[in-house]
């Protein structure tokens, strides 16, 4: 079925559903304000030429997030 992984471990071109947040701090709050909330579908699009940050599509918009922030976001990956 599906497993829970950190968002930063989600490979490009794969989809997942946001499961939970591993921390509650200012930077997680920021990410949430952008509409990256529990139950939301998120697609990993591509990584920057130097492998960080990574672009994701969520809520119909494309946003780039850093690995350090993605480590705190847990997602349920589609098989």
């Amino acid at each position: 079925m599906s497993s829970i992984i950190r968002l930063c471990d989600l490979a490009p071109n794969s989809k997942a559903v946001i499961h939970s947040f591993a921390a509650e701090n200012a930077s997680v709050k920021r990410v949430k304000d952008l509409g990256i909330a529990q139950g939301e579908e998120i697609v990993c699009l591509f990584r920057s030429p130097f492998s960080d940050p990574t672009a994701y599509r969520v809520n119909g918009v494309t946003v780039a997030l850093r690995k350090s922030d993605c480590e705190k976001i847990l997602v349920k990956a589609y098989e």
Partner: protein
Amino acid sequence: MSRYTIALAGNPNVGKSTVFNALTGLKQHTGNWTGKTVERCEGSFKYMQNEFTVTDLPGAYSLSAFSEEETITRDCLLNNNYDCVVLVLDSGALRRNLRFAVQVLSMYERAVICLNLCDEARRSGISVDDKLLSAMLGAPVVKCSAVKKQGLRELKAACMDVCTGNITCQKTALIREYDPISDDNTVADKIFTTCVSQSGINKVRRRTEKLDKLLTSKATGIPIMLLLCAALFWLTAVGANYPSEWLSSLFEAIKTYLSRFCGFIKLPHFISGILIDGVYTTLSWVVSVMLPPMAIFFPLFSLIEDAGYLPRIAFNLDRFFAKSGAHGKQSLCMMMGIGCNACGVTGCRIIETKRERLIAVLTNNFMPCNGRLPILIAILMMYFAGVSSGIIASVKVTLLLVFIIVMCVLLTLLASKLLSMTIVKGAPSGFVLELPPYRKPQIIKTVCRSFLDRTLFVLGRAAIVATPAGAVIWLCANVYIGNTSVLEHCTDFLDPFGKFIGLDGVIVMAFILGFPANETVIPIIMMSYMASGTMCDYSGYEQLYALFTANGWTVTTAVCMIIMTVLHFPCSTTCLTIKKETGSIKHTVLAMAIPTISGIIICAVVSHIIAVFI
């Protein structure tokens, strides 16, 4: 006639500023990225004999006030009793936009929903049922495309209806369901799924994805970025030479007439000296050196900005900035800084988080601006390319200049790192960079706007400071105490210090007097060496080289001069801008002290090391 107040609110980068400009006819700078409006901006328009005052609030993702802009937006909505709030939403990204709309509507019922960018959404295959949306939100909904000036009349009419009470807005049962404390999205999501449908292929997204593959991939992203930057700077540097020459010969001709006129009305020598040789010469200098490169650089930069490419540069380079505790968008402020540091500092507004923005403001001066690049080129030409003109020399100079700029970038990163460990300590703020769809820039409009907004604005500020500076420089050179001029007294006094850091008193004094405009540094040095009372331009590098060498310049002096050119206090225009942007004298002083102190230390060390070997 009645007066009403309206506020524009919405997520970042939904075209609030464009709507604002379209409504009021004001020229607020717009661009395809988030965070253009930081301060509130006000304007007004008349419609059916009523006057409406419009406030453009900064973009906010939510009202929970994470960033400075969100705090401003929330406080404005809470403290001002606007007659109507226009919620500007991006029709192509309604899912997220509606959440903000629901938040605002739950505390503010008098509202008009403006579905902006609706033509782009149509092309993306997105259709919105505006009647249903209006019923669910309890406020009138207007579809518009502010860029194409479509739907503006309807928007104005809706605003008037709400302001005058023709339409009474009411919280619908659905909006009342929303609980601001739990900040739940179910209400907004329900509205979204009911009113918005997607059919066919999303062409806009597909084009953006294709371009992104090209512009952000490992193989092509970085080379394209470097080529684009190189082209931008090359066009600026080469293209500016000709208009610069025309301007300076024009000003020269005017000067001859002015001098004749002064002679004709028998103006005392002292006054005509201050006015013509001091104020006029400095002013015309600054204009002819600064105007052409800025008039080329900023419009081109704005075109790239409008197309939506800038966030991709920040995306490509963020890794390095993350390591320095800074934000990827700082790379864009640095590019603007090469155009003009004052613009670069203003440009730091695009960084949403306070800490990262402060780092970018304090380090912007490490990028040599248009006023300083010519000094670097002159020194490189004379001391490292062997004066000889021609292809080989210009290639040599270009390579050395690229080396210097790379060093400047490294210095910026190092300084950012040091700053983030000391003065602006604290955890890095959450990094979120939106990558909006690419849009076709409106070439003529963008070029005109950026010329008016950025170029003339900076030029105006520069002129304000160059005018008194011209008078001071002339007075220094022409007021005598005993047998020597004030300028000479100063340079003699500064000489031991200058020598210690590998320069001399004249150069140090030139940097001090060049505070209002770095363009005047070399002319002041020449004026002092020749002990003449007026500044004049150099006709060729040979002549300048001979003059400098006769006054004791060596390769060490040249190296230290290059270091000092990059590392000294920002010009007065930039300092004023830093004061304005940070609102803090402490930070302005820091921005002056950091480069100056590091410049002095590096110069002293380098000159003493070279002295050991030679």
